[in-house]
């Protein structure tokens, strides 16, 4: 639990303090240092154009983190509402929501995000929006699965007998009971989003240059993998460690949660 948190904290501080830290600007080209490994001036070396890898890593972290924080949030909000509605109401609402969710899930998620990004146009906001929409069906499924067993519980019946409206029951009675599951899943989704954003940028349809992102840094270093592997491998390692940390964190959160609920019942 300790190490993952430390690494995530480092990434956060670098990402959001990148401008005030003593890094050279991420687009500054120091041609003398191009393709060189770690040195005093460039602690993690320089890329093909002589840009400082550490500085680009920090600025790229900002993109990765922004996308991976906001996109699941979009999916969480829309997906939860859709999931609740489809669990609470039957008939046309349920059929309609489930059909749309299934149709969205019928595309491999990366293809879905790719198509959406192309339609919306490449920019940080649009990539975030596309990935957010991509995560809606998964959240809707989880929300529905969590809400269904709660529908027939006593406290819902009690609220209904007390005269509570549909909206009150959904958002004040049912929602609080599934918030933990949804948040745990959001953490998993964060790590999926980091990889997804990296994949889009790697394919050249994500965040447009010159804004550095981990995915585009890995893609740029790919052509010269033979001569200077560090240009690709350093951002790759950063991405790996971040995803691993998030997964470990999610895992211990799940264990904590299941342990607690086991103690209660």
């Amino acid at each position, binding site marked *: 639990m300790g190490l993952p948190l430390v690494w995530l904290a480092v990434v956060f501080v670098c990402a959001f303090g990148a401008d005030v830290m003593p890094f050279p600007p991420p687009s500054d080209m120091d041609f003398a240092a191009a393709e060189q490994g770690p040195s005093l001036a460039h602690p993690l070396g320089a890329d093909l154009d002589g840009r400082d890898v550490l500085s680009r890593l920090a600025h790229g972290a900002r993109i990765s983190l922004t996308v991976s924080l906001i996109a699941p949030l979009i999916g969480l909000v829309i997906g939860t509402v859709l999931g609740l509605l489809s669990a609470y109401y039957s008939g046309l609402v349920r059929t309609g929501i489930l*059909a*749309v969710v*299934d*149709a969205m899930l*019928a*595309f*491999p998620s*990366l*293809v879905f995000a*790719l*198509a959406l990004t*192309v*339609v919306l*146009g490449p920019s940080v906001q649009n990539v975030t929006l596309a990935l957010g929409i991509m995560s809606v069906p998964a959240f809707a499924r989880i929300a529905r699965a969590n809400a269904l067993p709660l529908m027939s519980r006593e406290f819902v019946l009690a609220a209904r007998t007390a005269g509570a409206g549909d909206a009150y029951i959904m958002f004040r009675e049912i929602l609080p009971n599934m918030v933990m599951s949804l948040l745990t899943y959001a953490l998993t989704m964060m*790590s999926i989003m980091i*990889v997804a954003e*990296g*994949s889009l940028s*790697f*394919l*050249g*349809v994500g965040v447009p240059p010159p804004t550095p992102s981990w*995915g585009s840094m*890995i893609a740029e270093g*790919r052509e010269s*993998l*033979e001569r200077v*592997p560090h240009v*690709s*491998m350093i951002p*790759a390692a950063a*991405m*790996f460690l971040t*995803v*691993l940390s998030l*997964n*470990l964190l999610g*895992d211990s959160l799940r264990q904590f949660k299941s342990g607690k609920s086991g103690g209660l019942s």
Partner: protein
Amino acid sequence: MAQRVAYVGRRAGHLLAVLLLLSVGTFLMLELLPGNLTDSLLGDNARPQDIALLEAQLGLDKPLPQRFGAWVWNALQGDLGRSPLSGEAVTEAIAHRLPVSVQLMLFAQILALAMALPLGIWAGYREGGLVDRLVSSASFGVLAVPHFVLGLLLILVLAIWLRWFPATGYVPFSDNPFESIRSMTLPSLTLALVEAPVYLRLLRSDLATTLREEFVTVARAKGLPDWQILLRHALRPSMFSLITVMGINIGHLIGGAVIIETVFALPGVGRLLIEAITRRDYLTLQGVVLFIGATFVVVNLVVDALYSVLDPRLSARHG
């Protein structure tokens, strides 16, 4: 049997609805694109009469619902239009690329099963043992590696440093089977390494559950050796989660492994998708997206039908 037919029929009806929504979405995708299709084809300085001519050629002058109807009708007959940029029919372009993606899918599944089956069986058999613990932590690590990172890592180590395999490129199986397998090894190994941990975990936990069932105790009491209990009795009922996820993966991979095909420069369906995007060949893009979605849906239906055949209890439960 009648129940099973009814169940599959209901699933098919549901999937038909999904397919319809899928085609509406794909069709609208082209409508929602920024700028006109004609602009992207003719450039900004096109003469009005050229634009009108092209619009008439592509049928863009007709109302939206009518165009959707015509598009679906043509798509059902296997005509997804002709790319205005390359002049190639979209269906032909997909048919050209499909063998590459299918070969990649097959090799990846074979490799993944070759890794996951023995390790998963052993880990489930000796739950909590050394192999189990080693394999779970290793798979946890592998699951955190993005596809493209793993691909680059394998290129770096196995192609550039050790020179065992070519880094990129594709040799058709009919040209030279040996070279074809060699050129497919790294991409399919990358996919297999990503998928095997998932298969392994599913098999391990299902097998461990099966081994606690009474019929296993009976088999043990009869004095059957452990390997026979594992392979002859416990394995088959423990494979269902694995088959489900494998079905999903196969559905994905027939539609092209976009990332892997890009990393290893394989001319598959996924690569066609990316090329269509970079060339702004939106008609091809639309066709490929529809193809990928439809394949995925149909493969899932087949897998569904398959396991109600494998395990009659399932259709009884749903029906």
